[in-house]
């Protein structure tokens, strides 16, 4: 039997992220939808699947949990571990007039161990000044991040006044491939 080193066979590390955004709970409003996206470092290459998306609006009638069951199916190839995929979420609320306003930002790392994972991503929401809060309570809308990449970037957020929003629940199945070839044990 011939030995094939990693170079010889060219086995690249691959990562499958297959799962769903199950739903959200704990938000003050119930009619919610979610915009999501996956951010990776430069070493990562998307082979197939959608990097970002938006769920439908779910307005649950009984419970306060909004269910989306929005599928996520991504296939990445990578040449390095840096910039492991992060999932960032924006939960939006659609009010009774059909207007959309932000309910929460959140982000979580895609788990790095293979298998099935249930994630709960806590979200937050910028509060803004009291005038804005007042306006928000009467006419809707609300402060939003000017640069939404703050959600997942490590900018100094301590100056930001935020309030807690609800939790988004995710179910992700992670499949790693050929990572062991490069000494990454999972």
């Amino acid at each position: 039997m011939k030995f094939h080193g990693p170079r010889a066979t060219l086995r690249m590390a691959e990562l499958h992220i297959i799962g769903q955004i199950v739903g959200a709970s704990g938000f003050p409003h119930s009619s919610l939808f979610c915009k999501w996206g996956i951010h990776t470092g430069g070493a990562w290459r998307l082979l197939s699947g959608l990097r970002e998306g938006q769920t439908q609006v779910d307005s649950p009638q009984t419970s306060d949990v909004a269910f989306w069951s929005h599928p996520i199916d991504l296939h990445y190839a990578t040449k390095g571990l840096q910039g492991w995929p992060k999932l960032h979420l924006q939960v939006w609320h659609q009010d009774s007039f059909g207007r959309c306003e932000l309910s929460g930002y959140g982000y979580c790392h895609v788990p790095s161990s293979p298998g099935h994972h249930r994630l709960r991503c806590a979200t937050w929401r910028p509060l803004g000044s009291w005038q804005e809060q007042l306006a928000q309570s009467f006419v809707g809308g609300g402060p939003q991040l000017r640069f939404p990449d703050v959600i997942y970037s490590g900018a100094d957020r301590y100056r930001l006044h935020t309030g807690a929003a609800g939790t988004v629940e995710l179910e992700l199945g992670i499949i790693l491939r050929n990572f062991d070839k490069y000494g990454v044990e999972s």
Partner: protein
Amino acid sequence: MASPSDLREKIRKKRRALQESLAKSKDDVDTQALVTTEMEMSRDRGRTEVEQELSGSQEQQVTTLKQTLKAQRMRRRRKLLSDTTAEATRGEQPMGTELSEVGEPLDSVTKPRSTWHTQRDLPPLPVETPLRRRVAEKLKAARSKAETLLQQEALSEPTSCLQSLRDRETLTRFDVECPPQTDPGLLSREAGDLSTAARVKFQDVAHRVRQKAEMETGLPTAEMAYNFFTFNFDPEPQEEPVKHQKKRKSRRRDRAEEEEEEEEEEGDSHREEEEAGAEQEEEQEEGRDEDAPLVGDQGSELFIIDQTAQDFLEVKAVDYVGYHSRVQRESEVLFTPSLRTVPASSKVPENMQPRYMEDEGLYVGERPPMSRVNQNILENRILQQDEGKKWFGDDGRVQALPDPIKQSPTRPPLFSLEGDLDPALQTVYRKALKSKHAGRYIPGAGPGEGHRHCQLDVDVAGLIFSHHPLFSREHVLGARLAQLYDQHLARQSRNLTGLLTDKLNGLRNALRNIKDLHGEQGRSMAMRQRIVEYKEEVKNTRILRNTEQEKDRTLLKSIVKVWKEMKALREFQRFTNTAYKLHLRRELVELQKDEQGFEAEIQTELAELKGEFEDEYQRKMEQYSQQHEEWRTWRRKQKARKKKKKAKMRDDGEEEEEEEEEEEQEEEFLGDEPPKPELPEKQDWALAEQQVRERASRWRRRPGEPVLVPEISLSGSITPTEQCPRGEIARREDISKRSLLVKVLYNDKEVSRTDRRTLSSDFRVHFGQIFNLKIVNWPESVRLQVFEVVGSSSSLLAEVFVPLPDTTVLTGSAPFQELEFGSSQRVAFDHEGVGSDVPFSFEVDGSNKLTLLTSGKLSCCISWAVDNNDVPLAPPTSQQPWGVRSGLRQMDAIACIGASGLSDMKKLSKWAAESRLDPNDPSNAMLMQLLTVASSGSMQMPDYFRLEQLQEEFNFVTDEELQRSKRFRLLTLRSQEVAEFRNYKNIPAVEREVSEKVFQDYERRLQEGEVIDTRDHLDAHRALVAKYLQKVQESVVNRFLISKHHFILSDLVQEDEVPSIGVLGLNLFKLAEPKRPLKPQRKERKKVTAQNLSDGDIKVLVNIIRAYDIPIRKPLSSKPAMASKSARSFKEPFAAGQSSQSALQGGDWPLSQSQIRPFVEVSFQRTVCQTTTADGPNPCWNEELELPFSAPNGDYSTSSLQSMKDEVFINIFDEMVFDITEDERERGSSVHTRIERHWLGSVKIPFSTVYLQSRIDGTFKVQSPAVLLGYSKERSLASEGGYDAVRCLSEGSFITLFITIQPQLIPGESVRERMKEIKFDTQEEERLLQAAEVFQRDAALCFPGRPCITTVIDINGRAVFVTRYIRALSPPQELLDAFPNSPQETMDLVARYVSLIPSLPDSVSFAGICDIWSTCDQFLTLLAGDEEEHAVLLCNYFLFMKKKAWLIIGTAVPEGPTAYVLTYEQGHYLIWDPSKGQYYGQYDTFCPLQTVGCLINADNVWFNLQPYDAPMRMSFDVTRSKLWKPFFSRAFPNPGLSSVQPEEIAYNRPDKAAAAELQDRIEKVLKEKIMEWRPRHPTRWNRYCTSTLRHFLPKLELSGGRDVGEEHRLELHNLLGDYRISGFPLHMAFSELHPLMEMVYSTGVHNVEAPSIEFALAVYVHPYPSSVLSVWVYLASLVRTR
């Protein structure tokens, strides 16, 4: 003694009685409240008396028991008595009261006893446990003690309180039975109180109450429960017992402890007393016996009610340890640190004084605050511990770290959120907006993507007037002073003098060094040159230094002078206007040193000067000697010449003198002798020294003179207005009236202006406003206009042009610039203001006049803005025209060199080296720093920005390897939906399994994007067209893709409609419908979206019902009837009921003959199904064929399905059976036949039509070849009957079909629906478009089924009004010339020509996009188009031929919405099918046109308003507005729309050579194909037949495909008599080779498998103008008959 059984018997009786009484007393509600309270009270009490009562009620069951009881009671009583006596003896209270009170407790003891009767719910137990008795005893004892204590307490209490208590007791004692009984001593007293009658009464009441209580002991009734919970009980009776209880409880607690002691103490006396009291007790018992039966009865009743519980339970007092004892006990175990302060001595080690660090000056941190008490406790506790002292510090306090709590919160306060928040974190308040297009989620994208705008930020900071008309004289001086001071400061900061001095020294040193190092001799040429250069440098620098020094000095002097003037002025005018104040700071210097330095400097200078002079002299001497030499040579020559002259002139002597003079003159002229060098040198030297000294004394600080540093401060006080003279007040008032504003003009347009700011007394105005200019035009100029506003009128004061910034100058980094402005306006005032352009003087006498103009400095800053993402909003540098000069060049080190945008550091450093910049020059400082940075290797400026550092080091693989991965590439391409890889199912999991071949096609396509592949197209022109079409398609597809992604709800959600009342009603009616109606109707099936389908899910159902007029076989022997090929006239088809032809032929053929056995074969996607064989020319099959369907690449999306080019072929064959039994003998026993089938005709239906229409239902004309060898069209009227009379007027065969798809697919939005959503840009007038929209909408409202077109999309994607397409166009001249005499023939030919242009449905080429109408020339160039183009072209041709022609927009049977042409011909309307070239009469049954929506000609559009839309049932008279609604009417006349069609179409000549070539190629390809299709059989070609056939084809073409068969069939027959021929010519418009092959294949000629079969195939291509080709393929199979 009663036995237990007796007892039980009794109990049963009692229970019965009780129940009766219960029923009786149910309505006694009044007393219930009382009872319940009673109950509650008694519940707690009396438990101890259980035994007593038991014994009483059961008539002394157990005598022993009784005795013991007595003994107990006695003991208790005795104890009580002894207590009281003990107390009495103690003498605490008087005896009398004592006695009376003794009764009380006893009373209260007995009282519960009686109430307890009612309460009792425990069954009696015959045998009492001793334990229980003992408990009871104890309790009783305790209680009695408690009573005594209570009594004692009561005594100590105030009497009033006691009184009330007692009163209440008596009140509640109504239900008490007979308290006096208990104590004989008291009995007599009480008996005296109560009469016997009262007693009886009491007893009654008690009885009743008891009964009630009994029933309560059972289950309380609902009523009672209700009352119990709801009644507001009287608090008074309740309060008392509670009190009692409480008291008793507390007493008991106390007693419990005392009891034990007492018992121990009094143990002996008890025993004595017991005996004594036994008798007493006996009596008591007897006394009670009177009551016993009553009580006993009741008791026995009660006991039975509940047999459970308490016997097993033991009632115990709460185990309680007294507080003091507990404290005592605890004190043995626990340690309680005291709260007292610990003396300091105990805290520090012995013999030591506490030491306070603070006093020693050491820093001791602040101790955390702690309460004194806690600290004491802590200290006390610690001290008790082992080594407790180690916790204390030297100062005798507990060691503690300083207070860790910060006074201020660590988190910075969030006062202003917006202020200085990191811009990356800023939030925007966005209104809750309704998003029409819910944008895709892009995490990083800003709002304004796409077109980027530029933004200039103009920051107007403020302005300062250096002169203003309102300046007072003092202001003028002040301004001058300030100006001078500013100058001074600027000079000082630049310190030019110092720098130049340094440089000078440096240069001198260098020069000296050189001189020292190298002796005079050793100097090389270069060195000498350098020395000269140095000297020159030194000289220049010195001169510069001197001038600078001079300037400094003058400046200082003038400052002082101005200040003096100002002071004088202030003095003079007696008020102060400005706050300027000048101080001159003296810095003393050391005289000695200074003098030395001064002298040394002068000496050096002199030495240098000397050197310079010497050099100069030397140079001059050299020059002189050189010149002198020259002169001398010249002179010599001159002399020689003179001599010659002299010799010559010697003859005449008079002239000699003159000559001499001349000579002299010449000498003077020539002799440019330099003046003697020695003389000026000496003279100069002395003079120079004097000059130097003088200069030094004048411009340089004299030695010992202090250094004067002027300082101006604004600390001076301004005289208040009241103290000023009138003129000054007026001036000041004037100032306050004025305000200023600045307008910003961009490219000479005012874009904004600042607020008005009042002019302050110091003539400084601060604006501080930033204007953001969003720029569209290139900046040419930015002007700032300063306006002065007085009241409401404003006047332009000055205008400042601001230089435009470089694109690199960005907001935030741009410095402010001060721009000077001035105004020549003449302003004069009658007050103190000096005015502008007005002469004024500081002198009193008015001399020395001065004229000043308004001027000032404007501070502003212009820069390019930076957007939120830090992207400069500047225009790209490359666009910047050269004229723009940067105003900030002097600020930018590189820019000031004149090398703006120079970014190459190497070049820069090279340039710097070359130009030998002075490193000490401050103006070069920035540059030098840059250069040092650039030149030092470590600080090399990278020309890139590393985003993810250290990425490289940790990479698994390199980028190239990642790129090289074939598998990844395949995956990516698949997900990108590249055409080749779309729906690629399985991608190997391992890299090596991906073959390289996969990408070949794709890569080839990428490479050969532009290369035209002519192999598939045979014709270069067509290949080009195909390419062009592809490109158009691509671009249109791309444009459409965006709108395709825009889903509407119905695309995603399939929602069943909620049934309304109407629908429900209909459904109800349906119940009544017959189960099997006579005329069943097809029901709408459920539609399926095409997304989740896969191969095999979809089937195409073809229902073949019947066919008419199929040609029949012709026996070989029969004599052919010559078909009269009469010139057809248009009238013929419409003449009803006459068919001479068929009548003629009808007689020739016997009916009985087996004419034909046709069957139908349906092929779709190479799947073939066939029906059974029927008989006769009008067969009826009624069979359903099911064909599987698979989408291309398994892509079942709507667009893919719509663009499918597959067609459903329906072929009609004749089945012929040949007997091939060779052996005649076997004929009887076996059948050996061969079946052949002969193609008779076909119908093609494109799949896209089926898909879009979801079903196709109707009768179609079978496209049969013009000639069918071996068959003839026969009709017999007899067989068809009268009903068919109308139908048979049309020629050809017909087939009735029903085609659909199972399951039904939702067709993509139809072309026209799509059009409504997409707004195309247009050049039409808005009004016209609106009218068109209204027209179309109305049409759709009235008749939704009728298509109506007003605007169409042209090939550029613009909306065009449809009438613009109609214009008379000339057909090719050849066609017109062909039949000069017969207009009908010409029309036929023209129609044929049009039909020969290949048809390509738009929906195929522009999948699901829109209906695109190309103009006729485009159509002819592309040679492809759908029905509309054909119809437009045909209509235009007809118009040219002076026919009345319209375009019909309607629906036809196979193709759906389509366009036909209507012509009016001699009273008849003809409907032309443009893509087939056929025409139908209006009343033709088989006209494929089913509905007519609207008619269009060049002038107008008419919409069909008639009730019927079938052409047969309607009128085509468009003048009748009731039937046809015109678009352009009188209300909205036709604006005279010009046509989009060209005036003339240029036609290419038919290319015969190309046609011939194509013909050969087609023939070759087809022959190869046929051989290929017959892999197992040899294919022989009959050349003779082929050549014969080839001759026929041109004839067929000439006849236009009409029946010329008979002639050449005969011919053939003659030639090939031995063969049985079956064959036919196929004809089609040529587009590509593929459809041709498909058609040949579908005829199935190749399927004949007779061993002796031969084939003949002839191809003829007839060229028409503009490369329109008509292709004929003659196919025949021959079987030798002999």
